[in-house]
């Protein structure tokens, strides 16, 4: 049952959020998203990413400005069960006595009567959602007995079971293996192609150009918002992260001419680990390593 009236959109207009202790977490934040988009919310810790999430879900009321979802208030959108939320792994009590099936079924609660008795449809949707994230074999497991990636997939299945049209994911790639990351990304792409709006809060910069169409850069306000190609520039990122971003300047490192284009760069968004042509470990600074540079040159010369 999709509403016929206004097309799906999220409109954040001049939102200012202040907490009871007087701290202004977000000032005059504005951006707009249309249907069928994966948007990254990028910023350092404490930049107001989660505040913006909470404002979009209606958990905190802005002192100024408004959030509209498909032209309606957040409360109305929530009553329509349109917003699904995938929490950060740190926010979940993994020792809680519930199993995978129970958690995914929680996504259906909004659709059930007040006794929360699941219908055949609810069960079918839960089974489908588990299948879609490849967790059907684990439905009897207590949630604490899963790996980091499996845990994430369970909560993704819960969001799928909710059948919302907007999905908010908080740091979905933290503590997750590569297979799960790929599963998540291809799932999100499929949802986007169905017209969903997907908002991903992340500080994992490398993954952003891979799968996000839009980027919203946050630092106490919205610094820039728009298509990834336009917004995800070095200038904007420096603005968003200040001096906090780790940099690896190839021209200042121990990497040399003869390494050509075969340099390997490994990173989990911490400091990158760089190997030169012959698998040599490379250092960020040449200074103090002149001996090493000379040795490498000799090797290349022979």
């Amino acid at each position: 049952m999709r509403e016929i009236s206004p097309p799906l959109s999220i409109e954040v207009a001049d939102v200012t959020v202040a907490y009871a202790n007087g701290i202004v977490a977000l000032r005059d934040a504005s951006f707009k998203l249309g249907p069928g988009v994966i948007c990254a919310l990028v910023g350092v810790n404490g930049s107001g990413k989660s505040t913006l999430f909470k404002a979009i879900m209606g958990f905190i009321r802005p002192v100024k400005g408004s959030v509209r979802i498909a032209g309606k208030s957040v409360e109305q959108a929530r009553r329509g069960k349109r917003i699904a939320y995938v929490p950060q792994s740190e926010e979940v009590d993994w020792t809680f006595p519930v199993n995978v099936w129970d958690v995914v079924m929680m996504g259906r609660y909004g659709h059930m009567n007040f006794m929360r008795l699941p219908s055949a449809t609810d069960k079918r949707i839960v089974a489908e959602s588990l299948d879609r994230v490849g967790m059907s074999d684990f439905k009897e497991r207590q949630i604490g007995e899963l790996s980091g990636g499996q845990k994430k997939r369970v909560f993704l299945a819960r969001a799928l079971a909710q059948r919302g049209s907007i999905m908010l994911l908080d740091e979905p790639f933290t503590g997750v293996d590569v297979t799960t990351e790929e599963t998540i990304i291809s799932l999100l792409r499929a949802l986007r192609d169905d017209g969903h709006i997907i908002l991903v809060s992340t500080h994992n910069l490398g993954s952003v150009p891979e799968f996000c169409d839009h980027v919203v850069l946050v630092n106490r306000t919205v610094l820039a918002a728009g298509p990834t190609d336009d917004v995800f520039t070095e200038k904007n990122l420096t603005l968003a992260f200040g001096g906090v971003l780790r940099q690896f300047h190839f021209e200042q490192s121990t990497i040399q001419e003869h390494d050509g284009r075969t340099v390997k760069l490994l990173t989990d968004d911490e400091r990158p680990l760089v190997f030169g042509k012959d698998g040599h470990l490379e250092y960020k600074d040449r200074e103090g390593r002149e001996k090493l540079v000379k040795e490498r040159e000799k090797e290349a010369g022979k």
Partner: protein
Amino acid sequence: MNLLTPFQYSFMNEALMISALVGAVCAVLSCYLVLKGWSLMGDAISHAVLPGIVAAYSMGLPLAVGAFASGLLCAVATGWIKSSTRIKEDTVMGIVFTGLFALGLVMFTKIQTEAHLNHILFGNILGIERDDMIQTIIAASVTLVVVLVMRKDLLLFCFDAAHARAIGLNTSMLYYVLLSLLAGTIVASLQSVGIILVVAMLVTPGCTARLLTDRFDRMLLIAVASSVLASCIGVYVSFFINGATGACIVLAQALLFALALLLGPKHGLIARRFRA
């Protein structure tokens, strides 16, 4: 006097029945409190009911009404002070509930009552009167029915309040429902274990069950079973030692917890040692 002597007295049979009912209600609620991390809240509300009881007594109201009102007052005041200052919740609670408890003690000495302070503080189930018994049964039954009807919503609220809110559940309503249930349970248990020890009834059965299972439905059943058993053992034993029924019940609870801690099949200390 042989082992069956206690059952020849009607007051003993009544005490066994009431304490089993109270044990069951406390056990159900304890599962939620343990999972939500509200043990201190249970302690706080149970102490905070004292001024309400004294006030209700002097006004001729049912004691349960006063207890319920002042228990909720404690929780609401705690919530309000926490959200409008920089002080953390546990600290605020520590101040509010001791303050209310002290107020209750002062009121008690000022207002002439026929009630015994000891009975309020430590329970008096062997000498329970008809009115108190009816109040206890009503408070226990109402609480039990509400928890069982709302058990899934309350569980979701304990597990992931943000998700509950996102799918349109009224989480502030659930917060107050859980608080009211807690206050109701405390009112129900006043007669059996009293204000001071009721927190044990509100925490121990849930903890015992938590050690024995990973499923919530089973946790509820195990908690109820262990709590009813402990309540009956406590009442039975206290007959022979001539008193301190509340303390005997709490000791039996602690004993069952210790057994679960040692002998639990999966999370027990011995099973763990063997696996390591």
